[in-house]
């Protein structure tokens, strides 16, 4: 099972690839929209890429709850453990 840090780090690479945000800026306390300036369409791409990377399902209804990087990492951890 991947550690929180491994998930954050892999997620940071996805966010970097899609939205060009420096990897080191993608920290658990950062908001995707307010801090990292990831727009809604890029967020959709991030979610789909994360589903494939972590082999989890992230329902569209859930995406609005993933406000921070920490929210997303926690969701992925739960989904992997569930």
């Amino acid at each position, binding site marked *: 099972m991947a550690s929180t840090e491994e998930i954050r780090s892999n997620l940071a690479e996805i966010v970097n690839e899609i*939205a060009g945000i420096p990897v080191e800026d993608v920290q658990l306390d950062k908001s995707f929209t307010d801090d990292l300036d990831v727009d809604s*369409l890029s967020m959709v*791409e991030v979610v789909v890429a994360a589903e494939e990377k972590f082999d989890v399902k992230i329902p569209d209804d859930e995406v609005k709850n993933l406000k921070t990087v920490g929210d997303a990492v926690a969701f992925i951890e739960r989904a992997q453990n569930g």
Partner: protein
Amino acid sequence: MSKTRVVITGLGATTPLGGDVASSWEGLLAGRSGARRLTDDWVQNLAVQIAAPAAVDPTEVIERVKARRLDRTAQLAVVAAREAWADSGLEESGMDKERLGVAVASGIGGLHTTLSNYDALKTNPRRVSPLAIPMLMPNSSAAYVSLEFGAKGGVHTPVSACASGNEAIWLGLDQIRLGRADVVIAGGAEGAIMALPLAAFGMMQALSKRNDDPERASRPWDVDRDGFLLGEGAGVLILESYEHAKARGAKMYAEVAGAGISADGHDIAQPDPTGSGARRAMERALVEGDLTPADIFHINAHATSTPQGDIAESLAIRQALGKEADHAVATAPKSMIGHLLGGAGAVESIATVLAVHNRVSPPTINVDKLDDQIDLDVATEQRKLPDGDIAALNNSFGFGGHNAAIAFKSL
């Protein structure tokens, strides 16, 4: 009522000969071919395996994250538009962006995006990009060009197959003459070197099959021509009212004197063999530009290297210019860059503007034996153009029977 004068104050291009105007123009003057044999896996079972790809991959120029959001066609358009905009000096001039329009054409649109997302769809619908529609829509290039510079006038996308690039210039000219804009960023782009277009144009018997000799494949007016060579790239011209350009002390390459549009009303793919539609487009461009055939010293022909099309155009030029065609040097850049489809008219308009501006016609390559049905003064070497007032025509014709001719004149 006198017409508003419109001039060219900026040029930008990315072509099979170079990633900018200077290198592309230098390649044309040198008679260099941008054709090559394709080596991609997807080409191996195709009948036609040659093309003229852009010399500089646009993803090497555009910022990575931005490039992800643009189809290849729009990437090429943005590269050319950035060069033209910088060349014009308009950003520094502080112009009113509500008076800035855009007319950037494409023949096919975002085909890379369409095809790659269809492939993704077949594996998993969730892999379809949320940006697929804004990337594949035909107006994507024009829209991204307007976003690039904050243009807030009309943003247009003429779509008339291979006449699209010239139609964009025609439209831009009209927007300025109608008083709707002071400046229009006009041009065309196409990035369609992919299996589907190569197979489809190939099935039409429209493409040259000289796979073993790509640089000799595109040979407009030569007796052994066997079809066109698919190219890719973009050209963008800054059209500006003379008064606006003069007021800010802008450099001016040439004047857009007039533009003529017509339809063949004949066939969806074949040109009218009498050339009457093409003739009317040229005549309309001359009339609108207050020019006579005697003023024309250079003709950038559509001349795609197809057996029928080249003859029909030659007839049309003779009908439009009569005896005066004797002193008009005919040139066919598609012999070097191939056919850029929606980008062709724009890139070749740039070549025409530079021919007028620099007083030199680029050569046409691969004319080993001129077809005796071609009654034009074909230059196979660079040709000096005379001093004094000169004008030139650029022709573009498209599937659907679209004809578009632009008349440029020296300043």
